């Protein structure tokens, strides 16, 4: 559930602007034809009513005409349907690929590098970063362009909305990779639906206003998108590193510092852990306690307790032991951990590397 909310929020915050930068031109060109027709009609009426009244003011008024909203809505509706289908296919592809923790980690790191690369491209750091932008094949762009130009009636916005699947923006491409990562057709579809739905209000508002504002604000938007992409990219790389239990990830570094301190916060509703039987609560917002202390040189049992848990913390991973377990939404699942030497730290996380924690083996 959390993943879809994150997708929606990503859409509403950065996806909309980023998509608009790539696909806005397409929408504008399909609307242009219609606007011109409307403008001509309006001008003819104006001439008939009052001569010499073709001032710039009229143009502005026509641009804000409510009929402009319909083609934008059609464009967005078609886009939503097309991307949901794409999410379905990507999720299905992910399920065929059977992603385990390591491949998911590699995918997350790759997505992260891709996002950071795109952010650096937007900042114009070096022309080499332009290769992070995926160029669709020429025959597709040519076809899209021709359709945009012909732009008659409402068919054009519908078709163009659907065709945007071929020219996804950087944030969308990243979300498509996450859809593969879900490894489930339905989840992939819902994820893309949530993301595109999130982009829609921003896309609509800005597209509507952009007809007046032009490209003056575009540079501004791009900077904002680039910064967000940079942050999201680094988070993704970090999640990937966490997932393979790398001590280099920021999350694990912080945890290591915390582990050195004897503070241990425990969930009051959990049974008390002793050195050999540990209890860990997997909640909707992560694991508690985040640091467990276990006795060294003896096998231990880790009991994972869930209570109406629907977030990705249900998908429990211990990378170093090759443990992957899908927990029930409510209940207890046990994992046996073989004896470890004193001083060993075993890191665990959810399958997306978002929620983490560790078991410290003491003497």
């Amino acid at each position, binding site marked *: 559930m959390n993943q879809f909310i994150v997708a929606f929020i990503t859409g509403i915050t950065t996806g909309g602007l980023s998509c608009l*930068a*790539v696909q806005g031109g*397409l929408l504008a060109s399909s609307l242009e034809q219609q606007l011109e027709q409307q403008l001509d009609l309006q001008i003819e009426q104006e001439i008939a009513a009052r001569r010499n009244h073709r001032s710039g003011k009229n143009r502005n008024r026509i641009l804000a005409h409510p009929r402009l909203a319909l083609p934008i809505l059609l464009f967005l509706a078609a886009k939503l349907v097309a991307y949901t289908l794409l999410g379905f296919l990507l999720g299905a592809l992910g399920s065929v690929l059977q992603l385990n923790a390591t491949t998911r980690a590699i995918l997350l790191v790759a997505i992260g590098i891709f996002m950071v690369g795109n952010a650096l491209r937007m900042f114009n750091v070096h022309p080499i970063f332009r290769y992070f932008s995926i*160029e669709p094949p020429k025959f597709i762009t040519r076809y*899209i*362009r021709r359709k945009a130009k012909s732009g008659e009636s409402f068919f054009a916005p519908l078709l163009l909305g659907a065709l945007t699947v071929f020219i996804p923006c950087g944030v969308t491409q990243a979300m498509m990779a996450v859809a593969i990562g879900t490894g489930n057709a339905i989840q992939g579809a819902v994820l893309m639906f949530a993301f595109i739905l999130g982009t829609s209000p921003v896309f609509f508002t800005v597209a509507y206003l952009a007809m007046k504002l032009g490209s003056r604000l575009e540079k501004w938007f791009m900077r904002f998108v680039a910064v967000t992409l940079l942050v999201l990219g680094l988070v993704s790389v970090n999640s990937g590193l966490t997932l393979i239990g790398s001590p280099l990830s920021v999350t694990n570094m912080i945890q290591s510092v915390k582990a050195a301190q004897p503070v241990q916060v425990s969930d009051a509703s959990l049974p008390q852990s002793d050195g050999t039987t540990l209890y860990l609560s997997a909640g909707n917002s992560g694991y508690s306690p985040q640091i467990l202390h276990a006795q060294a040189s003896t096998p231990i049992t880790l009991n994972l307790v869930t209570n109406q848990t629907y977030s990705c913390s249900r998908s429990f991973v211990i990378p170093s032991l090759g443990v992957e377990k899908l927990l029930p939404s409510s209940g207890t699942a046990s994992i046996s951990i073989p004896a470890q030497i004193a001083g060993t730290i075993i890191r665990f996380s959810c399958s997306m590397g978002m929620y983490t924690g560790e078991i410290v083996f003491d003497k």
Partner: protein
Amino acid sequence: MLKKTYRVDGMHCSNCAMNLEGIEDDLPGIKQISASYQKGQMVVEFDEAKVSENQIIAAVEKRGYQALPA
């Protein structure tokens, strides 16, 4: 028929390349434009009897970019 390569400044995404290729519909005498955002350039195939280089450069500028013969 001439085939010339231009360096294009001002492109910021692959949609710009598509935008530039749209010039082939606007100017008679252009057979094909192949623009690449990644390379920051465009290759124009045109009939010099029907369209001049200056016209092509002006059309590029009209769309918000700058073209320089490579």
